[in-house]
């Protein structure tokens, strides 16, 4: 049966903000699906709260709603759009759960929406741990011994039966959230409690442990004719006990015999049939005991997943694309294999290379989190590498990670060996060190439970074997068929062979190489991939070949459809030069991939490679404080007083001159790594104690309570065009990536705005920017404008701005870099004021790192962002909060505890919240101040003041909103506990007064009812721009 004609409008759900466990891979799958559905002639309605995605570009859907991803908000969109069908399998666990809830509450039936690609019962059989267990039993498949409990009592009773260690696995969560390993009875109770809290249906599965067994995943596709194919097998180098998302994984599986593998394959097929996924992809995880050949089923995801994105990139088989086609009626045999174009999709890819995926962690950003790995996911990104052999792929993947922290290898050998028994984020570095110190492979296998084959391969590398030495680099194609058929799709990787035989078919068109941003990490995420993809589109439109280099499998940029030629390579100078030698490009674009390509700029220039856009000198000038300082002086601008030092001692000496409070950080960092505010010499000394920064150190006067402004602007060397001026909700001191911001600005007068415009123009021209520039300003006091920094590249906010103003800044910038002039383009929309307000809010991963402080500061900690659009600011802010998952309460109890500086404004706030019907709780000082205003308030003891105290109250669920401002070095200890408790219970916790008053206005707006959702296409329709701007809202 080909395309279904009985449906015409399909609703697709994205996965929302990038969070640990659910990242950019769903933009890749969602974007593919939307493309396919449009090609098939359907109307596509998309809901996704994440503006930094390609899928939310207006051309990827008929109607694009940047709205919160929760049942209520999706229901509003359904009411407005009345789609015929809902395709929920491409937006991760988020989309699947929403589909489940909208089925359960009858919305879909009431509004006549058919679920396609997954059916309700299949979703439940897969996601409900209890049903899943029964389903497996009926299908005669083994699962680990386990009990399903929904209360602490049941858990207590189950303990003897399961024994320790036990594995706690909450139902309906993703990335193992809320789960963990319990080795002691105490841990057991903790984990179960956390698990029950995390599971939306208060259900946890408690498993007998099979820690140490091999962990395998199979990616399957099934069509309505019940034809099933296995797209890819993936083996975890880290045995069971480390979440697959945190494991180093390899495709295809390496250590199973054909008989063992076929047994897995048979079981996987049995699972997909038993769960009843009628069409689409599924990911099935197994544990295998290598000694006894025992197999247990761990779980199945009845949808496109992180692993299926990896499998697609590893094999060239576009799972999401095909899943979308299957969902609208096609059978596998009716779909062509993109890559060979002569064979159907009803086959199993076979590969003739090795793929290694390596997770990217960010523990250094969460002091307090101990860095050990468990069954819940903690990595923030991943890098994939393809090589001719395991060793080649492994070293490639290692260098793809771009680590900016060196693991400590100093400990003594015994301690080193013991540390290997608890997997940690630096386990392989430690393993390598152990090998170098002479530890035997068999001992290391015993301690780590890693398979001897992997151990042997890694040990050889650790002993210095270089799998590239003496060989020539050659570029081979990924073709799904091990060369049995000619590949039509230009997807390449470099391998090392005795004699180079290249497969690259480079036409005679000029090409432009775009350098991607590598693995996602905090501070450099999907926003940069978005820009790279736009660059590729623009280069293609210009009639040149777009050539993409990147090593991040989660991205749209590494979709072979995105560019004319994709090279899946690490972003190191030598790997990039390898590609350039092959491509002989007209130029290279380093401006869109964040700091990663920027770091390569000089090396490329030295190698005689032409850069497009902003010259390397300008990049240096912006990054080098002194010369940037001179530039600012030339154009009559100021930056905060600062000093540089090459050692802690020197820094402590010069600090006085700069003046406290000051902001200290090592040079050349993105996302404000290791950046801190110090109010005193002692605090500064303490900072050096903790971080021991190497190289140059910057000390800036910290501008307290300054308003921060972010500007994204375009420049062609002469003309400067402002993209947007964003006002941050939080004051300067909260990293721009972590603070909410709003377009248009809310409280800046016309003369300040024109100052900002002039300053932007002066800096862009002064540097000689060709392309994009991002400048952060601080408005100190009433009218003092300071320049915080200028980044002569695409910034994190480019996608948000593009969607807020309706102009794709990255595309315009790319055209400029290819030689067009701004004056020749129609950018009128950028000067007209939009008829709506857009708020960006950051999404923070504190929930994943329970031991780390949930406090915002100059070091970036957020993993993703959401956007809220509405006719006025409070409504937009409220939406952004809701989309960020910290939906503001419309009533209930608010707890307030602020530092003296904030007490005045806090009392105002308390008053208005009281008027809104909130009961007010506060700690000592704050309570007094509030009472003086005549507002009824209940005084709560701090943790340090004994019991009963506020932390207990929060944990008991007696608080709906927490406002806690810790400025400076004071009041942290207590605040820490308060914020931890709030984060743990998912209670909105606001740490700045500015944020708080915005929240207060938003709550008012929410009570006024939700504004109607409006799709981007209408928002940016020519008519919309002419509406008067609600500056005054």
């Amino acid at each position: 049966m080909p395309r279904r004609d009985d449906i015409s409008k399909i609703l697709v759900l994205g996965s929302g903000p990038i969070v640990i466990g659910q990242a950019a891979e769903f933009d890749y799958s969602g974007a593919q699906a939307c493309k396919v559905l449009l090609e098939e002639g359907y109307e596509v309605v998309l809901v996704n709260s994440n503006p930094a995605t390609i899928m939310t570009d207006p051309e990827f859907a008929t109607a694009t709603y940047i709205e919160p991803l929760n049942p209520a908000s999706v229901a509003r969109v359904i009411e407005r759009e009345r789609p015929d069908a809902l395709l929920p399998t491409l937006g991760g666990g988020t989309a699947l759960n929403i589909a489940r809830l909208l089925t359960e509450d009858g919305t879909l039936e009431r509004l006549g929406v058919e679920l396609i690609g997954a059916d309700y019962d299949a979703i439940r059989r897969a996601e409900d741990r209890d049903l899943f267990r029964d389903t497996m039993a009926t299908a005669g498949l083994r699962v680990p011994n386990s009990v399903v409990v929904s209360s602490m009592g049941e858990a207590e009773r189950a303990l003897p039966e399961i024994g320790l260690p036990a594995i706690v696995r909450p139902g309906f969560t993703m990335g193992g959230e809320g789960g963990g390993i319990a080795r002691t009875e105490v841990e057991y109770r903790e984990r179960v409690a956390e698990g029950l809290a995390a599971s939306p249906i208060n259900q946890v599965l408690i498993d007998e442990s099979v820690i140490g067994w091999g962990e395998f995943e199979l990616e399957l596709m099934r069509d309505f004719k019940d034809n099933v194919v296995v797209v890819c097998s993936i083996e975890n180098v880290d045995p069971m006990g480390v979440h697959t998302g945190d494991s180093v994984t390899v495709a295809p599986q390496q250590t199973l015999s054909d008989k063992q593998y076929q047994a897995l394959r048979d079981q996987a097929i049995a699972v997909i049939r038993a769960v009843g996924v009628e069409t689409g992809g599924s990911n099935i995880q197994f544990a295998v005991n290598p000694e006894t050949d025992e197999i247990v089923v761990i779980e199945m995801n009845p949808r496109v997943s992180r692993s299926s994105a990896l499998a697609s990139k590893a094999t060239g088989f576009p799972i999401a694309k095909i899943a979308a086609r299957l969902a609208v009626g096609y059978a596998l045999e009716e779909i062509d294999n993109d890559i060979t174009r002569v064979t159907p999709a009803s086959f199993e890819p076979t590969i003739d290379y090795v793929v290694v995926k390596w997770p990217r962690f960010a523990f250094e950003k969460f002091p307090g989190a101990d860095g050990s790995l468990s069954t819940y996911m903690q990595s923030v990104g991943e890098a994939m590498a393809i090589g001719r052999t395991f060793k080649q792929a492994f070293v490639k993947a290692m260098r793809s990670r771009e680590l900016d922290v060196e693991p400590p290898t100093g400990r003594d050998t015994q301690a080193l060996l013991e540390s290997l028994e608890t997997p940690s984020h630096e386990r392989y570095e430690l393993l390598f060190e152990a090998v170098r110190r002479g530890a035997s492979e068999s001992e290391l296998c015993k301690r780590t439970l890693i398979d001897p084959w992997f151990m042997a391969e890694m040990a050889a590398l650790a002993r210095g074997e270089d799998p590239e030495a003496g060989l020539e680099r050659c570029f081979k194609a990924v073709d799904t068929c091990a060369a049995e058929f000619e590949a039509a799709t230009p997807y390449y990787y470099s391998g090392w062979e005795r004699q180079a035989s290249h497969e690259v078919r480079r036409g005679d068109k000029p090409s432009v190489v775009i350098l991607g941003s590598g693995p996602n990490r905090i501070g450099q995420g999907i926003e940069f991939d978005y820009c790279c993809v736009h660059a590729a589109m623009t280069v293609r439109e210009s009639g040149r070949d777009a050539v993409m280099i990147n090593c991040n499998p989660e991205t749209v940029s590494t979709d072979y459809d995105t560019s004319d030629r994709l090279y899946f390579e690490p972003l190191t100078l030598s790997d990039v030069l390898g590609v350039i030698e092959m491509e002989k490009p007209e130029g290279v674009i380093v401006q869109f991939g964040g700091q990663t390509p920027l770091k390569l700029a000089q090396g490329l220039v030295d190698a005689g490679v032409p850069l497009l856009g902003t010259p390397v000198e300008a990049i240096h000038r912006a990054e080098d404080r002194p010369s940037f300082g001179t530039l600012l002086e030339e154009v009559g601008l100021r930056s905060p007083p600062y000093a540089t030092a090459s050692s802690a001692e020197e820094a402590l000496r010069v600090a006085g001159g700069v003046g406290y409070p000051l902001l200290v950080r090592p040079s050349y960092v993105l996302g404000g790594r290791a950046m801190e505010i110090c109010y005193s010499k002692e605090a500064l000394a303490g900072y050096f104690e903790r971080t021991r920064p190497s190289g140059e150190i910057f000390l800036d006067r910290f501008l307290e309570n300054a308003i921060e402004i972010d500007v994204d602007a375009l420049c062609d060397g002469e003309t400067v065009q402002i993209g947007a001026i964003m006002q941050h909700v939080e004051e300067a001191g909260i990293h721009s990536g972590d603070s909410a911001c709003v377009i248009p600005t809310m409280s800046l007068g016309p003369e300040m705005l024109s100052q900002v415009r002039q300053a932007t123009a002066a800096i862009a021209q002064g540097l000689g920017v060709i392309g994009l520039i991002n400048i952060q300003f601080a408005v100190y006091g009433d009218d003092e404008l300071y320049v915080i920094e200028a980044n002569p590249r695409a910034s994190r906010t480019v996608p948000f701005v593009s969607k807020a103003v309706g102009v794709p800044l990255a595309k315009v910038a790319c055209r400029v870099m290819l030689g067009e002039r701004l004056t020749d383009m129609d950018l009128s929309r950028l000067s007209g004021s939009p008829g709506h307000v857009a708020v960006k809010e950051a999404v923070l991963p504190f929930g994943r790192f329970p031991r780390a402080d949930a406090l915002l500061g100059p070091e970036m900690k957020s993993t993703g962002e959401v956007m809220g659009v509405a006719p006025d600011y409070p409504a937009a802010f409220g939406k952004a909060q809701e989309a960020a998952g910290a939906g503001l309460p419309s009533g209930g109890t608010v707890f307030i505890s602020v530092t003296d500086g904030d007490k005045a404004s806090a009392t105002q706030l308390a008053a208005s919240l009281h008027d809104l019907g909130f009961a007010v709780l506060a700690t000592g000082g704050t309570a007094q101040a509030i009472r003086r205003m005549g507002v009824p308030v209940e005084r709560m003891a701090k943790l340090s003041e004994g019991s009963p105290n506020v932390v207990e109250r929060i944990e008991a669920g007696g608080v709906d909103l927490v406002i806690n401002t810790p400025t400076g070095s004071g009041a942290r200890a207590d605040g820490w506990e308060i914020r931890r408790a709030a984060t743990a219970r998912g209670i909105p916790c606001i740490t700045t007064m500015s944020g708080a008053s915005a929240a207060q206005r938003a709550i008012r707006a929410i009570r006024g009812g939700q504004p109607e959702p409006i799709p981007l296409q209408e928002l940016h329709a020519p008519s919309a721009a002419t509406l008067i701007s609600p500056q005054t809202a």
Partner: protein
Amino acid sequence: MSAYILLEDGTRFEGEAAGARAHAIGEVVFNTAMSGYQESVTDPSYRGQIIVFTYPLVGNYGVSAKHMESAAVHARAVVMREGVDREEAPGAEGGWLTWLADCGIPAITGVDTRALVRHIRDRGAMRGGVFGGEVSEGEAMERVLAELPMDGRDLAREVTQREPVVLDPLGEGAGAGARIVAIDTGIKDSIVRNLRERGAIVELHPCHTTSEELLARNPDAVFLANGPGDPAALDHIVESVRGVVGKVPVWGICLGHQLLCRAVGLETFKLPFGHRGANHPVKDLETGRIEITSQNHGFAVLGPHGEKTIDADESMRWDTDFGAAELSQLNLYDRTVEGLNLKDVAGATVQYHPEAGPGPHDSLHLFDRFLASLAGGQPEHRSAGLDAPRR
């Protein structure tokens, strides 16, 4: 120690010697499966051939008796990107490279197998040899050219049983009590096991056994096995097959499929580089289902009008010396014939390997269908040979 592989067209690839210190000449073919190296080299169908494994890492899980498809290694030599000895792998009884050496099989590692495979794909399978670095290219080429080309070669004689053997059932099932008389042209153990595990008694007879001798065993069915070489060179076997068709049900796999087809008057031809792997999609035209199959053949059967590939997805008929034959299975990769049913006499065949070993198990049910059809009495039932799986 350096070694190289030389093809008859003069193409040469360098590598290191592994396995036995010897040279070997044969038809150079490639296999795209990602596991099952030991099953492949012990499959008699590889007689006279040098196997290039497209998967770059071979030997990871060692070798063990349970992976043998016959008593010996039949491939002449093995070409790999990287080969390892891992006797310590869980479940291994020995290391792969050491074992090859013990079996006297030369191998070569470090070869850019992908470049080699692309060459064969474009130029077709051809003769070649694996030589130690010390052998001069001139001498090597002489030896390569001295080897007979694969077309027209009778290799069944080299791999067949010398004496008949009778093998008892290994279990209960659809085949309980059935006596399956097989012409052993190099039968794989997996086939024998699958028949015996379903309760059948399996007799293996030398490939020169006559139809009279076969019928004298009063078989419930005659089975035609897989095997090496060119079916067109096996007229002596085809003769015996002609003698049994119509008298007892006949089922053929791989070479057996080609032999039955020739016996009823159909033609076979040589594929450019054959099908060898574990991922070929084959469509069952009766059920419309697609199965992922294990494949290992260099020749195929021509369509009803002498065509090499079949365009439409619907079954079509041949007129054979024994009535109609119906196309039952089609390869969706290159659209070649993968199986047929004789409509007027009891007989059916598949070109691929339902027994797997190595490869996917999607088609194991064919053994049940075949054996069940024997139990199921009526000729029309029988003639249906392999009717639709009941799912």
